[in-house]
């Protein structure tokens, strides 16, 4: 039975705090500088939200639901264009894997100063998964707002401890011989998954390819679906 993402968050939430510490205990080299202080407007919004939620004036679940509705509005189409270009243009792909930040800049996409984007490529033998164990560091210049589940303590901790199990809950059952690499994002270093180009997509145009690419595939919790009409 496939678990919905919200169930996934709700069910796993209880054990998450303990697992979070465990995740870090297993990562001896995860020693970073202090967290990057957000921009002035970001801090002001955070302050408004935390005060108003504390006073019971606004329902945080309703806020999340509203943001969820719009999360796709700033971005996964940008990432999809990057992926489609990499599929059709080997020289672009080579540059993209060597220097993500500069190469997405060629398409007019970029984040604030200080972010560095690393693009990691899925192959038949390697599957990449992105997480931010700290909070919700996310390549939003190419993916938009992070989905609510990405920010959940459950995903943040379990993606590191049991990535194969997490992927199964997202409906992606990878063969045992596929290596799963989990990339922990930071405020300075963010990741984007370059998913595998699906079978049967050879005749599609770059725009048609971009339309196939999903946000979840670029986080690594899904594969890009087969083009319409193509049977596995």
């Amino acid at each position: 039975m496939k678990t919905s993402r919200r169930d996934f968050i709700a069910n796993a939430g209880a054990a998450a705090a303990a697992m979070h510490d465990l995740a870090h205990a297993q990562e001896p080299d995860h020693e970073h500088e202090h967290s990057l202080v957000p921009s002035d407007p970001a801090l002001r919004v955070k302050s408004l939200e935390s005060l108003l939620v504390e006073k019971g004036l606004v329902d945080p679940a309703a806020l999340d639901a509203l943001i969820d509705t719009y999360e796709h509005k700033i971005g996964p189409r940008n990432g999809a264009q990057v992926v489609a270009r990499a599929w059709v243009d080997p020289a672009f792909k080579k540059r993209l894997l060597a220097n993500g930040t500069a190469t997405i800049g060629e398409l007019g996409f970029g984040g604030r100063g200080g972010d560095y984007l690393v693009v990691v490529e899925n192959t038949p033998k390697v599957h990449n998964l992105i997480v931010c164990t700290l909070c919700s560091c996310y390549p939003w210049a190419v993916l938009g707002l992070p989905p609510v589940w990405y920010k959940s303590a459950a995903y943040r901790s379990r993606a590191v401890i049991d990535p194969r199990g997490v992927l199964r809950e997202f409906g992606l059952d990878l063969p045992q011989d596929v290596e799963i690499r989990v990339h922990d994002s930071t405020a300075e270093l963010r990741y984007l998954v370059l998913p595998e180009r699906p079978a049967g997509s050879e005749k599609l145009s770059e725009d048609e390819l971009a339309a196939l690419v999903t946000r979840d595939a670029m986080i690594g919790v899904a594969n890009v679906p087969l083009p319409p009409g193509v049977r596995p």
Partner: protein
Amino acid sequence: MITLNQPDPTGAEKLSSLPQLPRDVGGPVFAEPWQAQAFALAVRLSEEGHFTWKEWAATLAAELKSAADRGEPDDGSHYYHHWLAALERLVAEKGLAEPAALFARKEAWAEAYRRTPHGKPVELAAGLAPPARR
């Protein structure tokens, strides 16, 4: 508390009262996550009855006008800065949160970020604790 009998907060009619809102055919567009959070806060506070959408539109319009009067370029790039300023003002006017409390909370969050090593969740408490000896 979610009121179900109100029209869709992001419905065309409501958003059309905000003529300069950055948007595409699908609705509002955001350049950074905080903008979507500020957008959602205004919509939810209005939905929960803390102010009417008309009051919101008037406050935002006044903020946009004073920016224009100050000679700021009206290219939409600062739209959500004005949105946030309007939200802070209306929240204060309605007695939902005092400016001093907001300022103190902002300092506390900034301090929490400064004190929390990367790899740990940033909790507000870290910014409220007495300062460590340096």
